[in-house]
């Protein structure tokens, strides 16, 4: 499988988009840290990059890459390689290249300018989100043969996770603010990997505020050992489930 991934990686690096992405992240991160005399503010802007841009790029890039690798996939299919292996190699190659882009583009500036627990959790979350959204992109791409539809679906999904979901949550929490919703908010935050990642970072960044009111519950839950395991577990679930579903459909598909 690693053999195949190597070729996928090679193919992606040759496409140069990934290099552009790396440079973009790097330019943004460095300029943020240089411009703001308060590095806390720079990290705040980086947080938005991690939560919004990383999922978007991961989804769109993976989708386009998937459709562009149809030839490669076809070629591999006539070779003695199982479909599961082919798709997982594609996934691994894509996710690895995207996450290394992120690690170089954001990880290095963070290590240079903001090396603490917040910085580390930021980079970790970015990597996890890359893997998760690449997996989601593979899931949607495998469903449809049409590139335009695939990209459309990816964008919709991104929009849902990045914005619409939070809007709905806000609506629900505001409407039912008279009821005890602590358990519900825990559940709601698990149903969106972006939210989960955000809370994971906030536990480091806004610890003081999170200790107030129901926030203390977050700290108690997510801040504890089981909570951290839970967070990582759910994130992994968000990564593995769409990927397994993608593999399942891919195995049943005519190509």
């Amino acid at each position: 499988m690693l053999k195949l991934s190597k070729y996928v990686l090679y193919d992606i690096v040759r496409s140069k988009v990934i290099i552009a992405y790396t440079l973009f992240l790097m330019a943004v991160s460095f300029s943020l840290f240089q411009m703001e005399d308060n590095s806390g503010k720079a990290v705040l802007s980086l947080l938005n990059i991690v939560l919004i841009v990383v999922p978007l790029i991961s989804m769109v890039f993976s989708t386009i890459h998937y459709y562009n690798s149809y030839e490669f996939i076809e070629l591999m299919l006539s070779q003695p390689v199982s479909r599961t292996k082919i798709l997982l190699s594609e996934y691994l190659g894509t996710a690895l290249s995207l996450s290394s882009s992120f690690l170089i583009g954001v990880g290095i500036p963070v290590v240079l300018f903001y090396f603490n627990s917040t910085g580390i959790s930021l980079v970790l979350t970015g990597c996890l989100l890359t893997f998760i959204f690449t997996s989601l992109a593979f899931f949607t791409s495998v469903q449809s043969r049409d590139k335009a539809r695939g990209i459309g679906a990816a964008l919709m999904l991104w929009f849902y996770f990045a914005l619409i979901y939070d809007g709905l949550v806000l609506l629900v929490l505001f409407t039912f603010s008279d009821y005890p919703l602590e358990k519900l908010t825990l559940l709601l935050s698990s149903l969106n990997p972006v939210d989960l990642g955000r809370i994971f970072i906030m536990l480091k960044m806004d610890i003081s505020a999170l200790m107030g009111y129901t926030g203390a519950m977050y700290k108690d839950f997510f801040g504890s050992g089981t909570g951290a395991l839970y967070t990582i577990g759910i994130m992994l679930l968000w990564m593995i489930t769409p990927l397994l579903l993608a593999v399942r459909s891919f195995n049943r598909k005519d190509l």
Partner: protein
Amino acid sequence: MITIKNLHKKFKKLHALNDVSASFSRGQVVSLIGPNGSGKTTLIKSILGIVKPDAGSILFAGKSIDKQVAYRDNIGYMPQIGRYPDNMKIGQVIEMVKNIRNHKDGTLDDELFFDFKMDEMQDKNMRSLSGGTRQKVSAVLAFLFNPDVLILDEPTAGLDPLASEILKDKIIKEKKKGKLILITSHVLSDLDELTTDVMYLQDGKLHLYQTVENIKQQTGETRLEKAIAQVMKRYLKDGTATIPMTENREADYAKAI
């Protein structure tokens, strides 16, 4: 070698394969013919596991191909339109496939590689290649690992006459080694002399599967093309044929298994 039992495949409304059963064994060169959209490519892709049939089974050397991939080690496949990763060079593609195949005995059949002068074009980008050159790459890859079975989908379609001739010679060579060769085409003439069996598909149905001698003998025609045409005409006219449309190949089954 390959046994197909009651194969069905539907693409939405189109019945691409309708209850197809057949058996292929060593030494055969089967010409798979039929009009466009008759199901030839679907059948080949089913054998390769690229298309998943709705019903029926395919056995390779007695084993179902459903849950395995290793059997593809014994197949060289040349697709109708070879599509390759745009960013790779010819040499890299060949290297990659070599890397991925578990080619055990290690001796590669690079005859076509040199005959097609691939060694001079190694550094060409796949993106820049003409259709014909791509076909050559496909052919090289199909023969490279010296497989027991060769599946060639319209092999000479995009090739220039010279290359076509080279390929034909190569097929004859392989035939002599006793390999099973499946060739699809809608024009027969240029492969006449190679063929041992003819398989005719139309609208997903297997209409004819006979040895060439049988067909020629029964129809009295010396030219294969005409013989087939005659059989088909008769069949379409009154629904009967003087020769059985498909031979009972129980013996082959047994041999294969």
